[in-house]
């Protein structure tokens, strides 16, 4: 496949160029993440009004929802990076996907555990087999499989491609999972607890939530770039630019 792409796209393929660009962008994202997260947390935990039903326990939403959103976005990102890596043979794309996987898995774990903690007071159970929860759990398994596959190959290039194949198969499957799980649930049993009905939140509640989500994205970008840069150095440690980099800074 030879699809013409703009110049910057091919520049991305150069490890050195990517390394430098990410080095430039990182501080900005770090700063934004810090500002947004601090604002969001302080606002959400201290100033947002308590929920009329759940009291203060609802405040875990400020962690729970952003991590749940990010857990899913991260998988999409990995799939896109996987396609780019496979089609245009772009090493950097694979490295980005690989660096993203553990972050996505952590986000999924955070979403699951905050959800479980929240579930106990609101539902009286740590876990219910609700559609959304179940598909999240499956997402976690997919992440773990992908991470295991990356580490199982001795040739890093092979590991990249293997994991990309699995990611692509997985991403095709995610809508199917979501759909089937939802259908399965409503078919047999009227869900005792629905997450789909949005609590009618006043703006004082959802604005900090939005800030938290944005903060999470910035934080994600920051960590992703940091991890990618480390992985780039590790893989390219033989090449000229890394040697130059290491000798330049005593």
């Amino acid at each position, binding site marked *: 496949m030879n699809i013409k792409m703009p110049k910057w796209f091919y520049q991305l393929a150069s490890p050195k160029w990517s390394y430098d660009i990410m080095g430039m962008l990182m501080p900005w994202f770090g700063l934004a993440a810090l500002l947004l997260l601090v604002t969001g947390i302080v606002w959400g935990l201290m100033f947002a009004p308590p929920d009329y039903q759940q009291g203060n326990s609802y405040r875990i939403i400020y962690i729970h929802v952003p991590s749940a959103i990010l857990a899913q976005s991260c998988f999409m990102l990995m799939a896109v990076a996987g396609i780019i890596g496979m089609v245009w043979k772009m090493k950097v794309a694979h490295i980005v996907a690989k660096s993203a996987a553990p972050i996505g898995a952590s986000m999924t774990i955070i979403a699951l555990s905050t959800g479980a903690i929240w579930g106990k007071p609101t539902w009286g159970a740590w876990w219910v087999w609700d559609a959304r929860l179940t598909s999240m759990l499956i997402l976690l398994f997919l992440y773990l*499989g992908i991470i295991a*596959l990356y580490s199982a*190959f001795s040739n890093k290039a092979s590991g990249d491609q293997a994991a990309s*194949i*699995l990611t692509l198969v997985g991403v095709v499957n995610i809508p199917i999972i979501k759909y*089937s*799980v939802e259908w*399965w649930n409503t078919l047999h049993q009227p869900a005792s607890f629905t997450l789909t009905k949005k609590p009618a939140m006043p703006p004082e509640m959802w604005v900090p939530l939005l800030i938290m989500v944005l903060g999470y994205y910035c934080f994600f970008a920051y960590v992703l770039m940091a991890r990618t840069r480390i992985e780039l150095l590790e893989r390219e440690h033989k090449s000229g630019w890394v040697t130059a980099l290491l000798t330049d800074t005593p």
Partner: protein
Amino acid sequence: MNFLNAAIKRELLLALRNRSEIINPLAFFLLVITLFPLAVSPEAKVLANIAPGIIWVAALLATLLSMDSLFKNDYDDGSLEQIVVSPQSLALLALGKVISHWLSTGFLLALLSPVLAVMLFLPSEAMPALVGSLLIGTPTLSLIGAIGAALTVGLRKGGVLISLLVLPLYIPVLIFGAATVQAGALNLPISGHLALLGAMMVFTLLLAPFAIAAALKLSIRN
């Protein structure tokens, strides 16, 4: 097509040569299903209720476990290498292997399932749904499982890693498969469910062989 034919024939010959390969998934299926009355409860009402789920889980596990050796032997003895350095299409060969694998697992499981269903007191109205869902659903399991097998074949003791990779992808098939049988037991229409399972099968049938071939090449070149 000629080559696909030859590949299927060869696999079936190999399966016949050590007949245990054919009997084993069936035996496993049978044994797992007999464990449940022992472990859960021998009551007919309880069993009939959970029977669709149990039979489908057992079929899924039987497929999954036989998957592990699908490419392993060919990898270990160098046959896979020989196929990669031959001018024949790896995707076609993979498809042949999957087809003959399905013939000796999923297909036979589906034929055997009514017997087990009777043991679990599944109402007889559900039998067409059971056999139908297994016949249409298990090819998808074999195809997806083969992707996992191909990805892990080169790894020293990839072992049960394949389960981790493949089980999440099996879940939609499991859900719809079990739901079909449950609907059948309640005398509800099942054609919608079967059509969905069929669509999944066609979809994986078109894409999986290429994914398998790519994964095999990767594993060999690692």
